[in-house]
């Protein structure tokens, strides 16, 4: 029996994982070879694999939610355990001679079961993996260690699989890009009238909500072009969770357009959840509107198609954006970013319909431009990925196979948000008050992208991400995003009950609210909405928020218009149970108050128990005096005469250390002079 008599394929979740498996399977299997696909019920493989006429078996599996104890982690462990047992049974029955996995959490149980059976000497099939993404998921990293070979799409990925990684490129199905227009036209179940410019829009196999909604919104502005244009829309298979792609799209159509309008739209618009014969659409399309997943971009390069790319931000390594920009630089694609906006008080991500329509119309009817873009896109094609993979699996040819090089490599990564944050924070530490984001990121377009990427973090379900987003917005000087921050601060959705029992309050947790205020302070935009938010923050249940509100007020100072209200809030704030908040309020009073309204309040703080509060009151008074607000100085002197100076703390001074420091400084100065 030879290596390729019985091939077991696995991998899935999305078609981006299934299609490479099918492509590799088709390239490997000789006529008469038995092929079995193992996937997870209800995911893309259920739709796709069966259509290809392959037998499909299911195992249980779920994605790795991270090591932190949670219900999802428990489910993951249980699913993985059951999945491995199921996979073991399948492996024992099917007795494969080779196993090919293409990642996604689906492949994990099969790979682990194969490894266990191998240890027990019950299964000898070698395991081969293909990794489509630049940054492999945790499960694939573990599975990769057990595999005979890991074929990677991007050179950067090799470092995750030292020893057994091999650069192959993205394995595309043979039929993509190898079909002519007439055949394609004949195979569709709808008719595209001759002479129209065909736009093919799809957000991957599961569908992309912002893209789908944006496209439906754009139809209004496309109606006038209905005689020249034809839009094919792949809405996506997603029905799970919060988003039913097909129903949502149809619902939006119904909701936005009248019956007459819909009739017009139907003359140039067709929507389907999924296209099994996507090669036909590639053959017919003149322009694509797509996400920037590795699979899609590789297919577009193979088919030589120009695209309007809407990358999803904040994926590992931000690879969609990096890919999209690489194609944009080579003029093979145009990029349209999602924007994060406030709608009905909620922060959401969206694509503006008329903006999308405008970009589409500009591109679609510029034939020269389209053909230039098509040629540029084709340069990204990395040919013969399948050849590399099948030669390596068969053990043919000299190894390592020299990898096929595309004329234009896709650029893989952008600095992550956390890396960006530490760079910005380091700059703040260095330049203090004179900090400017431009000094860290000089390129204006770059800065604008980071701002919008940070904003898109605000829609993340994890508070840590939203917190990161808020911090970044402040440090990046994203003044245009102030409404988002204000919306976040006014969101009073309560935290889950369990969290409230332990001291949580709102879904936008304390740290987010505090950092949102810090960001507002940094951004320095003072408008009615900001002032209202600041006033509300003084009543926040979390002390750090109240404290930060006072600091922001001090920072804004004379620019505030509702001064009396702020002084009232601060005067109340000095009574805060929390000494930090009370102190911050006292200092802020010095910044914005006067002799009549602030001085008496500050002087009345003389008998506060904690010296830090008294000290803050003194600081406030100092500022008042410096600002020339105190006219009756002799009266101030008398009232200060008996100011209680009992203190429980002091700053130690180590003379030895001071001299040591002085010496070092003097040496450094001399060195500077010498140079």
């Amino acid at each position, binding site marked *: 029996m030879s290596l390729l008599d019985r091939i077991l394929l696995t991998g899935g979740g999305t078609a981006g994982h299934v299609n490479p498996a099918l492509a590799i399977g088709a390239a490997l299997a000789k006529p008469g070879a038995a092929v079995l696909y193992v996937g997870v019920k209800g995911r893309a493989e259920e739709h796709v694999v069966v259509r290809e006429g392959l037998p499909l078996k299911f195992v249980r599996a779920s994605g790795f939610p991270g090591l932190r104890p949670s219900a999802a982690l428990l489910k993951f462990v249980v699913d993985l355990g059951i999945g491995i047992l199921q996979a073991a049974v399948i492996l024992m029955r099917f007795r494969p001679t080779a196993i090919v996995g293409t990642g996604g959490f689906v492949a994990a149980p099969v790979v682990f079961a194969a490894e266990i059976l191998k240890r027990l000497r019950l299964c000898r099939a070698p395991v081969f993996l293909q990794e489509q993404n630049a940054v492999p998921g945790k499960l694939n990293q573990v599975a990769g260690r057990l595999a005979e070979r890991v074929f990677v799409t991007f050179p950067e990925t090799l470092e995750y699989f030292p020893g057994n990684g091999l650069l192959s490129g993205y394995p595309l199905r043979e039929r993509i890009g190898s079909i002519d227009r007439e055949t394609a036209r004949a195979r569709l179940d709808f008719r595209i009238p001759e002479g129209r410019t065909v736009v093919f829009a799809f957000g991957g196999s599961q569908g992309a909500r912002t893209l789908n909604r944006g496209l439906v919104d754009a139809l209004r502005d496309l109606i006038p072009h209905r005689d020249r244009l034809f839009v094919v829309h792949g809405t996506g298979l997603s029905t799970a969770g919060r988003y039913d792609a097909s129903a949502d799209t149809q619902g939006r159509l119904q909701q936005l357009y009248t019956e007459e309008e819909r009739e017009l739209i139907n003359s140039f618009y067709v929507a389907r959840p999924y296209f099994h014969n996507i090669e036909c659409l590639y053959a017919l399309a003149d322009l694509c509107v797509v996400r920037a997943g590795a699979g899609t971009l590789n297919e577009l390069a193979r088919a030589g198609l120009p695209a309007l790319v809407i990358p999803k931000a904040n994926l590992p390594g931000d690879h969609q954006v990096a890919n999209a920009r690489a194609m944009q630089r080579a003029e093979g694609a145009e990029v349209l970013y999602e924007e994060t906006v406030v709608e009905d008080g909620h922060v959401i991500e969206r694509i503006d319909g008329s903006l999308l329509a405008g970009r589409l119309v500009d591109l679609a009817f510029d034939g020269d431009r389209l053909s230039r873009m098509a040629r540029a896109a084709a340069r990204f094609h990395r040919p013969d990925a399948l050849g590399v993979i099948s030669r390596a699996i068969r053990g043919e040819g000299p190894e390592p196979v020299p990898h096929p090089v595309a004329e234009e490599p896709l650029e893989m990564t952008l600095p992550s948000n956390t890396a960006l944050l530490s760079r910005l924070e380091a700059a703040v530490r260095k330049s203090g008050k004179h900090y400017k984001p431009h000094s860290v990121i000089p390129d204006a377009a770059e800065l604008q992208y980071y701002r919008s990427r940070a904003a898109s973090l605000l829609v993340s379900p994890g*508070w*840590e991400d939203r*917190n990161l987003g808020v911090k970044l917005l402040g440090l990046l000087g994203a003044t245009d995003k102030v409404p988002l921050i204000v919306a976040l601060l006014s969101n009073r959705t309560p*935290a889950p009950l369990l*969290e409230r029992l*332990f*001291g*949580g*309050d709102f879904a936008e*947790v*304390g*740290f*987010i609210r505090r950092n949102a205020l810090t960001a507002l302070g940094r951004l320095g935009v003072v408008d009615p909405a900001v002032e209202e938010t600041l006033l509300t923050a003084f009543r926040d249940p*979390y*002390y*750090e928020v109240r404290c930060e509100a006072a600091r922001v007020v001090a920072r804004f100072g004379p620019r505030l218009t509702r001064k009396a209200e702020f002084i009232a809030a601060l005067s109340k704030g000095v009574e805060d149970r*929390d*000494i*930090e908040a009370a102190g911050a309020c006292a200092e802020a009073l010095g910044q914005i108050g006067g002799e009549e309204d602030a001085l008496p309040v500050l002087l009345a703080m003389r008998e506060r128990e*904690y*010296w*830090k509060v008294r000290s803050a009151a003194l600081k406030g008074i100092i500022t008042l005096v410096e600002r020339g607000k105190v006219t009756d100085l002799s009266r101030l002197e008398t009232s200060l005469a008996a100011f209680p100076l009992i*203190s*429980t*703390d*002091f*700053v*130690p001074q*180590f003379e030895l*250390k001071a001299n040591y420091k002085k010496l070092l400084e003097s040496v450094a100065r001399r060195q500077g002079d010498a140079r």
Partner: protein
Amino acid sequence: MIYALGKLLHPDIPALSFLRLVEYLSARSIAAALTATLLVLWVTPRVIWYLQRRQFVDQLRQTGIASALDKAGTPIMGGAVVIPAVLASCLIWCNLSSLYLLLMLAGMLWFAWIGFLDDRAKMRARSGDKGLSEAGKLFLQTAFAVLFVGILASPLSPLPLAERFRIYVPFVKTALVDSPWLFIPFVLLFVLLVSNSVNITDGMDGLAIVPSVFVLLVLGVFAYLLGNAIWARYLFYPFLSGAGELAVFCSAFAGAGIGFLWFNAYPAQIFMGDTGALAIGGSMAVGCVLLKQEALFLILGGLFVAEALSSQIQDKIGVKWLGRRIFHRAPLHHRMQHLGLAETKVVVRLWIISGLLALGALATLKLR
């Protein structure tokens, strides 16, 4: 050593009859304490300079607290003086055939070793935040706890058969629980929590050592009484034959601690480092378990419990889960400092509190 020698010599040689003193636990305890104190006082100055030369000094940590900045550069690994001094004193003054003592010494040395690895890793990385990984530390600690419980549950156990799986609580005469299924996980958890608590408390000059001395002294009293059949019966405690040697150990440790305080008092010339903190924590945990006083630690080591809990609650529940601070600062001593108390004042106040708690724990001897 001297114990064996004295026992051997005094019945036969009248001139050496004063050596019969070694028969008395009290005499040996005092001698052990003095020995350890003097050893530490004698060796530490040399060690400080040695550590300074080797640059085994405190590394900066990003805690954001101003006074911590002044401390970078102070030699650490004071534990490397304290632990050998305790060991030497025990070798001189203890009856080394006591299994209680051997388990105790094993615990102290194991945890000192973990702490040493951590300190060394920090030195090598030149960063106070890059010690041994939390998982690595936990693994080594768990390994000891498992071995320790294994021995206690096995026929090798020094504990009387009837007492083996019993858990006592303060103020109650009878055992609360007698089941291996509860005892074993309880002790595992107890050893892990207590052994780390000193480490968390060890954040200010002299803060960890004095309460540790209090705890060890009280444990010493318990060891003396429970190792004595008459006292144990009188106080309605289980009699633990051979546990008396722990009194000598505890007083040796307390003595070494006092010697260490000589140098560690504000402003410190040396820190105990993880080597010292984990060794003290490990010894307290092992001592409580061997003397069946696990629950008493809630009172006796109340300060350590508060420090450890506040730090864990702040980090695990507050910062990581709820996304807010639950305490203004954690652990406890940083909170007090944040309120505006000078470090020296915080330390003295916490000494007072831990002293009161130790007295309270002593009172449970009779209040049952």
